[in-house]
């Protein structure tokens, strides 16, 4: 096994990890605010990829337009879902809200299947990002480097937004005690809409970014979503750092697993999660009894 192959796999793990990070960040901030798991998160990710496909094939054949407007569209769509559906559900036990998102997932996937068919759709790498870059010790596809950089910038942006801005402080306060924030005269429901839009926008961005390197099908988010659950269990739910580090760990474990023995790769992360639960049940950065 050459050093170059190992380096390549490490980078591939970083790619996978990047997608996990983007999805887990959204999953985690929505959970923090609302106390629910969004089972439709994988479906929103899938819709992001299809939004990019629709934009580049039917509206304007330019990847960059899709890259900018795909996530914005998904964010707006997520915010609209919050306003029209989820707002009615907050007084119910989390169980029902989760069931609702499960139904939403089934409906979204089937709508996409009806429109685009079950075979998936083709998506090309943008021309400006074709080819490979010489990293000194190996060549690596330009597009994949781009994906890693975008994820890094986004994670940094989300972290800065939540920790350094006033709005971010309000979101964190709402996560801790939304009633209190409401009582202090802040419109908490508008903040909730924003958080939902942000989370779905990140999922949409992940969908747009993977479209050129993964099969775009109506079921592409199904397995990915569960992997993200492993990420947040390991990283700690509601923690930005947990989502980022957890996502990268899980991505690397899968990449290393593929290197050693491909059939075991997916099973490996669940075994790792099991071991993790025995040693540190609340996750790397998780708070004790958060939304328990």
């Amino acid at each position, binding site marked *: 096994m050459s050093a170059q192959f190992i380096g390549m796999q490490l980078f591939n793990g970083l790619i996978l990890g990047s997608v996990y990070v983007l999805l887990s960040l959204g999953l985690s901030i929505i*959970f923090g605010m609302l*106390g*629910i*798991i969004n*089972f439709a998160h994988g479906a929103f990710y899938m819709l992001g990829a299809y939004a990019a496909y629709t934009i580049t094939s039917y509206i304007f054949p330019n990847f960059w337009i899709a890259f900018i407007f795909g996530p914005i569209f998904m964010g707006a769509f997520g915010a609209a879902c919050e306003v029209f*559906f989820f707002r*009615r*559900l907050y007084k*119910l036990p*989390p*169980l*029902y*809200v*989760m*069931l*609702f998102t*499960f*139904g*939403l*997932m*089934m*409906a*979204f*996937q*089937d*709508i996409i*299947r*009806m429109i685009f068919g079950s075979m998936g759709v083709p998506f090309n790498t943008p021309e400006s990002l074709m080819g490979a870059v010489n990293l000194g010790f190996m060549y690596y596809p330009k597009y994949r480097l781009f994906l890693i950089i975008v994820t890094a910038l986004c994670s940094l942006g989300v972290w800065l937004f939540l920790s350094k801005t006033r709005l971010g402080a309000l979101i964190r306060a709402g996560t801790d005690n939304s009633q209190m924030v409401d009582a202090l005269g802040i419109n908490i429901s508008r903040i909730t809409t924003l958080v939902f839009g942000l989370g779905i926008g990140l999922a949409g961005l992940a969908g747009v970014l993977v479209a050129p390197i993964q099969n775009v099908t109506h079921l592409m988010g*199904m*397995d990915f979503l*569960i992997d993200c*659950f*492993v990420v*947040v*269990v390991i990283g700690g*739910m509601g923690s930005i750092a947990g989502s980022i580090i957890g996502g990268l760990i899980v991505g690397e474990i899968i990449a290393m697993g593929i290197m050693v023995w491909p*059939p*075991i790769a*997916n*099973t490996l992360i*669940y*075994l790792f*999660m*099991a071991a993790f*639960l*025995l040693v540190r*049940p609340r996750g790397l950065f998780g708070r004790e009894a958060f*939304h*328990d």
Partner: protein
Amino acid sequence: MIDSAMSKKKIITLSSAVLLSLLFPYLTPYTALASEILVFALFAMSYDLVLGYAGMLSFGHAAFFGIGAYTTGIMLVRVYPSVMPALLAGVIVSSLAALFVGYLSIRRSGIYFTMVTLAFAQMFYFTAFKWTGLTGGDDGLQGVPRPSIGPLDLTSEITLYYFILFFVLLSITIGLRVVNSPFGKTLQALRENKDRTMSIGYDVDKFRLIVFIISGFFSGLAGGLYALLLNFVPLSSLYWTTSGEVVVMTIVGGMGTLFGPVLGALGIILLRDIISNFTESWNFIMGLIFMGCVLGFRGGIMSIIRDKLKLNV
């Protein structure tokens, strides 16, 4: 006086339910549909022990259903073609899986419990998916036989229906005994208030683990019967959408009632059968129905029946 009237009503309802279940295969369009409803009724009932009585939202019960199905199927196909040992192996292995998953998952409660159970179920799914030599992988386990048990010819669909019915009625009887026992009452106490139950001196985690294993046992039985019914084990029996379906059946029927989930399974599977007759997009319609149930039908079928009959079963 009221008491005896109540119990009379109860006896009438129960006996008509049993009578109905005996006649049921003649009322459905085809016998296998009635058997499928029974299998899922058993699965949903066993799930209700965990969700409705202990208040634990597991999203990984497909694991126990699927493991029961695969173990029973593998026993029949590759080890020894006899039904009873195969079913027995199925429930043993699925109970062991429930012990493993439960032991690790009950360390987390609430939503974490949900995610951890789901992730473990996915682990079993990937194992079955990749271990093609044992499980048949993506194609599922093909050619599960239905060898006869003495004079019982299980290849006849109607005989198989009554064979499954026997296990389902037996399981419901045991399930009722469990939930009405002191053990069951303790579960309900810890569902209502975990801290207080703990402070009285109950080892809460032990109770949660035991009910999880019992539930895994019956889910495995349902899975084994499913393998017999289909002559085949589909890989989707381990997939997380199966877990989602059983949650929906339980809630649509009315959780915490045991009989409710049976009705939920009946409703959902009949509906799916009817819808899939005239459109390919039944997933879309089922999704809408789930959302509609959450928005306007949370008490479940059982709450309507209760209101109508003023019956406490």
